[in-house]
């Protein structure tokens, strides 16, 4: 019926930490997150370190246990409840959902050839019967990722960062996934190569109809690649909207501050940015009320006590802020 691939409601991931005088405490890395990822979309997740974006991505892959709420996956062939998924169904989900890591230098075993790296998922999951079949599949995927077929016999050390990231992408694609989480997949690359890898990911999304969850801290990169953006802060989802809507009129003060912190390429446009004071609080010692109130320039008393819920004003632009309507009106008045 609907074309939502991933649907999460009230999703939480907590980690038990320490065993101090007062027993164990729980660190909520992801707290009560609602998220809908449409089939075939390029969904961006942004936030600073410690915002929980990586943990959310891993929870959706069932790589960390979900401790609260619901999450489901539905690609038209299967419907899985991600909170209870286990056994053969979990194995099947592993084929359908894949991960591309940040650091292409750490993600590839230095002692395996490129061919073996790409073939490993096929062998582990038993997707191919014969060596010939495996080789044919590896070649097909390698060509798609613009890897030179002669390079398949080489080891990763012979390759540059961009080439290595293309190898990682090939490995993620080889099992024929429907959903890929790309966690900071271009952050370790030089700008000249970054554009190349981004274009490749977009091409894969279009041609192979794969849904991407693209996790990044770089707003100019997500602006160019993603259809939809969600912004996280200290484990919460604070804003979610189609990319253009979000960039044209961000509603949450945190999103606004993030945008204005991007260094402008114009040397005459120095120091105009609205600067955010302080740093993201520690997740073990979260402030009460709105998690952002310690750094927010528009803080009022209510923000220190009540935590704002994610509002759905009906225009597809969701935001969790007590004052967003008021601030949007004020912005319109001055414009």
């Amino acid at each position, binding site marked *: 019926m609907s074309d939502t691939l991933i649907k999460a409601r009230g999703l939480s991931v907590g980690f038990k930490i320490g065993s101090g005088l007062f027993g164990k405490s729980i660190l909520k890395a992801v707290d009560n997150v609602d998220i809908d990822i449409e089939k075939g979309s390029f969904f961006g997740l942004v936030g600073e370190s410690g915002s929980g974006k990586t943990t959310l991505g891993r929870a959706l892959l069932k790589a960390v246990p979900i401790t609260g709420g619901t999450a489901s996956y539905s690609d038209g062939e299967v419907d899985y409840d991600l909170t209870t998924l286990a056994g053969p169904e979990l194995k099947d989900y592993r084929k359908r959902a894949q991960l591309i890591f940040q650091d292409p230098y750490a993600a590839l075993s230095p002692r395996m050839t490129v061919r073996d790296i790409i073939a490993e998922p096929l062998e582990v999951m038993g997707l191919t019967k014969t060596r010939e079949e495996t080789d044919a599949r590896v070649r097909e995927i390698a060509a798609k990722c613009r890897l030179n077929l002669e390079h398949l016999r080489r080891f990763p050390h012979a390759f540059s960062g961009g080439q290595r990231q293309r190898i990682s992408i090939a490995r993620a694609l080889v099992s024929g996934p429907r959903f890929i989480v790309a966690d900071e997949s271009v952050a370790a690359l030089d700008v000249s190569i970054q554009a190349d890898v981004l274009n490749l990911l977009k091409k894969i999304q279009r041609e192979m109809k794969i849904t991407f969850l693209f996790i990044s801290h770089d707003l100019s990169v997500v602006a160019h690649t993603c259809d939809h953006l969600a912004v996280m802060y200290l484990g919460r989802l604070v804003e979610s909207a189609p990319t253009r809507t979000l960039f044209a009129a961000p509603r949450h003060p945190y999103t606004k501050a993030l945008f204005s912190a991007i260094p402008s390429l114009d040397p005459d446009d120095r120091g105009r940015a609205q600067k*955010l004071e302080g740093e993201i609080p520690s997740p073990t010692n979260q402030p009460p009320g709105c998690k952002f109130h310690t750094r927010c320039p528009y803080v009022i008393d209510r923000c220190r006590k009540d935590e704002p819920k994610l509002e759905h004003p009906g225009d597809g632009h969701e935001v969790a802020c007590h004052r967003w309507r008021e601030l949007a009106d004020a912005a319109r008045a001055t414009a």
Partner: protein
Amino acid sequence: MTALIEVKNLTIQFRTDEGLVTAVDDVSFSLNKGEVMGLVGESGSGKSVTAKALMHLNARNAVYGANSRIILHSENGPVEVLKLKTARELKIVRGGAISMIFQEPMASFAPAITIGDQMVEQLMLHSDMGKAKAKALSVEMLDRVGISDPAKRFGQYAFELSGGMRQRAMIAMALSTKPKLLIADEPTTALDVTIQAQVIDLMKDLVSEFHMGIVFITHDLGVIAQTADKVSVMYLGRLIEEGPVREVIRNPKHPYTQGLLAALPKLENLDAPLTPVAGDIPSPLERPTGCVFHTRCPKVVGDQCKTRLPEHVQVDSTHRVACHIHTAEVPA
């Protein structure tokens, strides 16, 4: 115009198992007092090796070219940095006249010594200050870079500080010896954007206050546009373009600089396609002949690019470029 440091024909090679690898090839530039120079390039372009040479800090297998010179103009007259040998002589540049901040602030602090002890130690090494005076200055510097409760932070370890605070402490430590030149090697790359904006602001304030020269190494042209007075672009060990920041960003002359700018995602125009610089940076073991960029250059103008190294050409009095398009007087 008083030159602070002059680099002349700097060539650096490394002895490796696979033979001599060229990291920096005939690079010349100079920096004045109070000037911020951005050094831009991809990984493998030789920007960090160049910066380390200013403090004679490269590994033992580095071989400097016979006519390479680095001249630091200190209060006691010019110092030939590459001729310094003993630890005592090197102290003049390392931590004395020149300080350096690194990319990863966690890795730059010793984990088992408090921030304060590390700051005091280097002050006592580089000045005739006593312990009490060094401590007072360190706390004052921590306060200057915007660290709240500096006296408490002084007694803490690096792991107790957040990333942004660690980088501030690093800057406080680097500046406490009042260096003439600060080398900042990707100081904001590991930081979140909001913290990056704070650190950039802090560095701008400190330049105007201390009037030192800064070599700012980064691959982020946005950061360069926000901080630098002039820019030098490096590719595979060659300095390929140099000029005032406005000139280089608005009117880039080298196809590589143009490519770098085109590859950047721009927020003003979300529909603009991202155009990568074609191909990959060649391995330093397989340096191309002629112009080092010709294997990836979209504007090769003939055999000369493959056979002859382009000379530097002055576009105007401050902007120079090394490209055959401009030597051959062919319109770009």
